[in-house]
Structures are given as C-alpha cells and as structure tokens.
C-alpha cells in the first residue's frame, strides 16, 4: 500500500511539472510539425516511398522521434534531481528503489503519450487537408500504435534513467543527445525504407531497437512493413523488459 502511494506520489510530481513547463509541451509539438512540413515537404517534392507521399511515409517516424527524444531526456533528467538534491528527499523516504523507478517510468510514459495523442490529432487534421495521404487512422490503428509507442517509451525512459543514474552532473547532457539519441533516431529507418540498404548500414539498423518500433508503426498506420508487426511488437516488449531489469539494478546501485 505504502509503495503504491509512493509510486503515485512520484507520478503526481512528474505530471505537475509536465503541465507547468508549457514550453516543453509546445516545443515537443512544434518540432515534429516542422519535420513534417519542411523535411517532409522538401524531400517529398522529389521522392516518394511505398506508394504514399514522403510526408506520410515519415509520419510514423516523426511520432517515434517525438517519443524517443522526450522519453530519453525525461530519463536522463534524473541527473537534475540529483543536482537540486530533490533525489535525496526521495531516496530517504521509506519506499523501495524499485518503486521510485516505476514511478519515474509512469511519469515519463504519461508525458510522452500525451504528446503522441496531440500529434495524432494533428496528423488527423493534416489528413483532412490532404497534406498526408493514405494514413490509416481509425480506432484500431490508433490503439495499436499507442500500444507500440507505450511499450517503446517504457523501454526508452528506462534507458534514460540508466544513463542518468550513472551521471554525476548535467554537463554530459549534450553527449547523450549526440552519441545516443540522434544515432538511434537516424539509424531507425524513420526517414528512409530499410529494404535495400547497403550491408553495413542494414546491420547497424537492425541493432537499433527503435527500428522495430518505427517498422511496427508503419505496418499499423500505412499497412506495409519490413517485418511482421507482431514481431516488431515482440522485440519492443523484450527491449522494455530488459531495460526495466537493468534499470532497477542500476537504481539499487545508485549512489547519492
């Protein structure tokens, strides 16, 4: 009972902070729109993949990008809690480290899913105006997409928390962006089809967990994917479970 309340307390804090930092919500919505309009519109004027226009092709990738950045940075942000000593207040409370980890994941997942829902609404509007074509947005595909994104987000927040729990100060923030998040995004096939890649690139792409999430989303929303959607979903579930296990271990070992 105490543990559940503790988890709820941590979620409550993250949710309040999320609602208050409006600039974060705004930028997490504006950035994907720029990707769709500028990159999508620009490159889309020359190429198209899989029978849909380029904007539509990258729409699942842009959703994933938003989830990737917000969930990873959310996790790494724990280093800020360390810095302002808020983490000490939490660690000295009579709840387990596992509960703290779970509370953080729920907080991060909530933030990300809210952003994704807003983006899906924008996608729906774009679809009505003919900017996106052939996107399948109905109750089934939206629920399926949200399930894939939720599992992926849980895994990614865990990765962020693992990195953040090991970091001493926020100075390493940029490095995480440059060496982990950006490569994960560009190597995921969010911006290009992964069917006919040169062997070296194709191999790296297959190692990137985000690839399967993007592929699954594409399968659900565009009806065409490289792997079966269930396989994609299975890989993401495994990824999430593995990261939760590593993450709870890292949290138990975390020093203050």
């Amino acid at each position: 009972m105490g543990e559940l309340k503790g988890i709820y307390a941590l979620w409550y804090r993250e949710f309040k902070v999320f609602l208050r930092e409006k600039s974060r919500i705004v930028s997490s919505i504006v950035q994907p729109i720029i990707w769709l309009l500028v990159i999508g519109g620009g490159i889309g004027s020359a190429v198209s993949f899989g029978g849909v226009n380029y904007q539509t092709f990258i729409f699942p990738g842009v959703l994933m990008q938003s989830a990737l950045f917000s969930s990873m940075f959310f996790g790494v942000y724990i280093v800020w809690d360390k810095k302002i000593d808020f983490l000490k207040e939490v660690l000295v409370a009579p709840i387990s480290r596992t509960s703290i980890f779970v509370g953080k994941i729920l907080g991060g997942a909530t933030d990300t899913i809210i952003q994704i829902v807003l983006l899906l609404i924008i996608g729906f509007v774009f679809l009505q105006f003919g900017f996106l074509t052939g996107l399948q947005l109905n109750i089934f595909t939206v629920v399926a997409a949200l399930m894939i994104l939720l599992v992926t987000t849980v895994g990614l927040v865990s990765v962020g928390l693992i990195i953040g729990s090991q970091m001493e100060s926020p100075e390493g923030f940029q490095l995480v962006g440059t060496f982990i998040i950006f490569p994960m995004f560009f190597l995921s096939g969010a911006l290009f089809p992964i069917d006919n890649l040169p062997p070296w690139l194709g191999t790296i792409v297959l190692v990137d967990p985000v690839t399967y999430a993007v592929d699954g989303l594409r399968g659900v929303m565009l009806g065409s994917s490289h792997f079966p959607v269930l396989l994609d979903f299975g890989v993401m579930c495994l990824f999430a479970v593995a990261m939760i296990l590593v993450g709870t271990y890292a949290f138990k070992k975390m020093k203050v």
Partner: protein
Amino acid sequence: MHVIETKNLTKRYNGLVAVDNVSLKIEQGQIFGLLGPNGAGKTTILMMLTSLRPPTSGSARVNGFDVLKQSDNVRKSIGIVFQDPSSDDILTGYENLKLHGMLYGMPDELREQRIEEVLELVDLTARKNDLVKKYSGGMRRRLEIARGLMHHPKVLFLDEPTLGLDPQSREHIWEYIEKLAREEKITIIITTHYMDEADKLCNRLVIIDSGKIVVDGSPEKLKKIIGGDVVVLKTKNANVEKIKMLKFVKKVESKDGLLYLTVANASENLQKILQVVGKVERVEVRSPTLDDVFLHYTGKEIKDGEAEGGWVQRIMTQRARSGK
C-alpha cells in the same frame, strides 16, 4: 533508551578517513549538536545515520533500528532537512508537502491535517500556493523544516540549517527550531560550523575535528573547561614568559599576531597583566565561547574552514560562471 547509538562508526573514501571511530549515545528529547569546521565529517555522520550511505565499519542504531539492516524502519523514524535545498521549485509549497506525505504513506486525512499544522508552525500558510521558485532562501528552508516534521519523526536531522542565510533569517530559523523542540517534543540533531548557533540551540554537543570527536558536553560545561575569561591582547614584543609567571594566567597562546590569555577573574586582574605586558595596542576581555573551546582542544580556530560557503553562495557562483 537512547534514540541514537553509534559504535565505532567509521567511513573511508578511497583510503581517506572521513569519520573515525565515532561512538555516540544520544537521549530522547534533546537538541544535539555536531559542531566542527567544514570537512570535519559532520555531514558524513548524518548521511550514515539517515541510511543514505553505508558505514565502512562500526554500527549505528536510530530509534532502535540498525541503519544497515533495518533501513526502512530507520527512514520511517526520521525527518531530514538537507544542507542544500531539496524541494522542487516548480511545485508549490503545498504540493511539496503533499508529495512528501504520499511518499511516507500517510493517510489522506492525516496528511492534509498535518500540512495545515506544519505550515502554521513555520508561518507559511499564506504562501502555500506559491511556487517554491518565488520563495526566499529563508522561506524555502522553513518549508523544508516543515516537510521534515510532517510525518511525526522521532528524530529530525538538520544539516547546517542556517548556512547561507542572512542574519535576520537565521534568527527566525532559530526561533522555529526552539519552538518545534518545545511543541513537537522530538530529538533534533543539528550539524553546524557556527559556534553561536550551537551555543544558542543545543542542550548537548560534540565538537568534531578530522572525523573524530574532540569533546562532548553541554555548551556551558564546555565553556567552563576553559576555566576563566579570555583576554585578547594586540601588542608588540610581549614577554610571554613573564606573563606565564602570573599565577592567575592559566594559558597563553599566540595566534595571528594576537595573544590569547585564559585568565581567572579577568576584571580584577587585568591591571596586573597590563603592567607586565607594557605597551598595548588593543585589549579585549570576554567570556569564553565555543570557539575558544575548539581552539583549546585543536589549536585551530573553527573559522579557518569556513571558506567553502553554503548553497546560496554556490548558486551565485554557478550563475557567475555561466555568465548570467
């Protein structure tokens, strides 16, 4: 029963001994002080007693629970106000307290009632719905003291409770600490490097230097150890040997060009001292302070270690460094 009991508590960091065989017994209901310069090991002792860091060797019990084996029960028994602010400044004062109550598993009704009580205690009721960002340093510290008290701890730890605060806020915080010792009847453990603070607040204190307990007792008892008044002289070419011959002069120490004498009944004997010393630039006669006690035992002044500064100063230097 002792609410805190440590046996040979020791902490080493990479071969460096931060806390060295500290054995302590603290009775319930005291305001107990850990006094010493920065880097003496006070905060490390606190971190071990609050189960945030494991001791290298030795043991500690808080409210009867072992800090290593029963850390959950230890955590339920204590409240702590850290040296650096640990409230979330994007939340309001009320929200910080609510969060705390939930983390400690308090029933909703009791939690809301306690929030009202502790806010009243630290005079923050009127500001409870403001973001902590908008609080002054003293208000934030008061909020965190209120938070530390919310769940009815047996022991409240205050790590340098007035570090970095202006004199007026310090006085305020002292008032609150005395008030809550009176009204909440709990054991309060304070670490501080301010002599006046320890003197004013504590019923009992230990002086700590280089991780070791130097001396233990009430402020009054410790000051009596000095055994007289303190006379500080600024003079050139004083004949120290001749001063030492005077039977009412118990001790002579020279430091930074000043002579520190411990004198029995200074008001009567000052004239005789001045005759021996000769030409004097400045004289100061005062009752002994804890500073003198520290000097007496360690040969150093506690002020020597003060440069490190507090959290406010740290925030300021950070701002200065980032050029804002």
